[in-house]
């Protein structure tokens, strides 16, 4: 089937990377869509956590914000935000932190604060770090979901709000960080994963119909391609049906 859009493929690919029984701390948007899709396909026991204090939320419609009743009314327990941030996220009790971002660099460092200019009176002021520093430091692994473009995938981010691998493998260990960092960057073109030796993000897979050169061209650094670069399977009928129904019913 060919009637799917790149943003649908991104969500489908991100969903497939979530393994059953893992706990996910989620941003709103594609990250949450992917988790909801995974729950309805291969990962029925996936556990959804939100900064609003929701533990084991079970939304039936896609939440518009982390305070959405679809999360608060369905959560198994709602704790306070300080409890969530300190005792769950910072303490490293979350397996996967799945977040969006404005800018990412070669070593998976993420920027959600400023683009261009100096820090003061920057060209584009973004929303800021929220809990991304805690996610980057402590989550078992971080999944980043964002659209591919040379302006977003850059050699070096303008400001680090969420630490990835710094300037290469070993830096997380030197800081004594408890989490594993951004092990997957899922885009509308494919999947980047850190190189085991250097921690540089490399092209691990492309979406069906996407050429490796397209991804290289959409990346702002000289993207290295894994020799065993794979191709995602197209969304199944079931995946597309579920995702579209979720979006329609929200």
């Amino acid at each position: 089937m060919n009637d799917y859009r790149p943003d649908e493929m991104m969500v489908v690919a991100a969903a497939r990377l979530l393994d059953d029984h893992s706990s996910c701390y989620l941003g709103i948007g594609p990250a949450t869509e992917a988790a909801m899709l995974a729950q309805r396909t291969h990962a029925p026991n996936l556990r959804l956590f939100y900064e609003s204090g929701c533990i084991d939320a079970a939304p039936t419609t896609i939440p518009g914000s982390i305070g959405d009743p679809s999360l608060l009314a369905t959560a198994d327990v709602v704790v306070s935000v300080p409890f969530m941030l300190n005792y769950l996220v910072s303490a490293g009790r979350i397996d996967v932190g799945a977040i969006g971002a404005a800018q990412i660099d070669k070593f998976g460092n993420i920027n959600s604060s400023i683009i261009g200019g100096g820090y003061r009176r920057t060209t584009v002021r973004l929303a800021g770090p929220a809990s991304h520093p805690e996610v980057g430091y402590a989550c078992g692994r971080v999944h980043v979901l964002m659209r591919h473009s040379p302006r977003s995938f850059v050699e070096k981010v303008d400001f680090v709000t969420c630490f990835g691998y710094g300037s290469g493998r070993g830096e997380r260990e030197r800081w004594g960080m408890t989490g594993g960092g951004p092990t997957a960057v899922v885009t509308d073109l494919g999947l980047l994963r850190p190189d085991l030796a250097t921690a540089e993000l490399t092209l691990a897979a492309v979406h069906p119909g996407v050429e490796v050169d397209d991804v290289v061209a959409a990346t702002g650094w000289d993207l290295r391609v894994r020799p065993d670069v794979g191709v995602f399977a197209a969304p199944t009928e079931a995946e597309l049906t579920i995702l579209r129904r979720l979006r329609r019913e929200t």
Partner: protein
Amino acid sequence: MKFMSVAEGVEFLVSDGDTVALEGFVDLLPMAAGHEIIRQGKRDLTLVRMSIDLVYDQLIGAGCASTLVFAWGGNPGLGTLHRFRDAVENDWPGALEIEEHSDAGMVNRYSAGASGSPFAILRSYLGTDLPSQSTSAKFMTCPFTGVEVVALPALNPDVTVLHAQRADRAGNVQFWGVRGAQREAALAARRTLVTVEEVVDRLERMPGDVVLPSWAVDVVAVSAGGAAPSHVPGYYERDGGAYTEWGRLSRDRAAFGAWLTELKAGR
């Protein structure tokens, strides 16, 4: 604790130059109190909040703030806060100093302030650029393990402003729903103003509620609907249209100016 109108409460507690935290996370946005701060033309405020949204966009656009201390700023689920961006990017309507933290940083700064501790420590700032752009983050070494940590100074607002569901006649305040940093921000503050939907004879406790004892509250002001368009569990739902409308209106300085004139006129 005194009962006052929102206008009296703001006049009584908020002065030009104060550090003011209008807290509330997603739910329970102290909108009416924020509007009153704008109406009274407060200036040179250091505005503090973990997660800023509409009311801070309005306060910043109205020129009430000279400094913003925050961890996130956006129109929830929709995107940009245009007045906030315009202030940072273009110094409009004036220069806005910013001090940027993470959510956990803000929570623990309030918590240190509420405990009488001079600072909080955390590890999650390591590797980020947050310490490099702030005088309110310093590296330290753990004296037991030798690992590095980042120290953040306690945050003790001059005034914390909250919206809650209700208060009793003695001024004990009860709220429920998303529990952000409100409790810690109130206990860390020198003075606290709480707007409530209603005053009741007796607070019927419920699971997951928070009761702020009256001695932690200086002024209670009744303001039914005072957190609209945000969600106030048990009273009203979020008015999503108002958030969308704000996104549209706030994009343009002139449209914002008209909105501001109308607000100040008393609406």
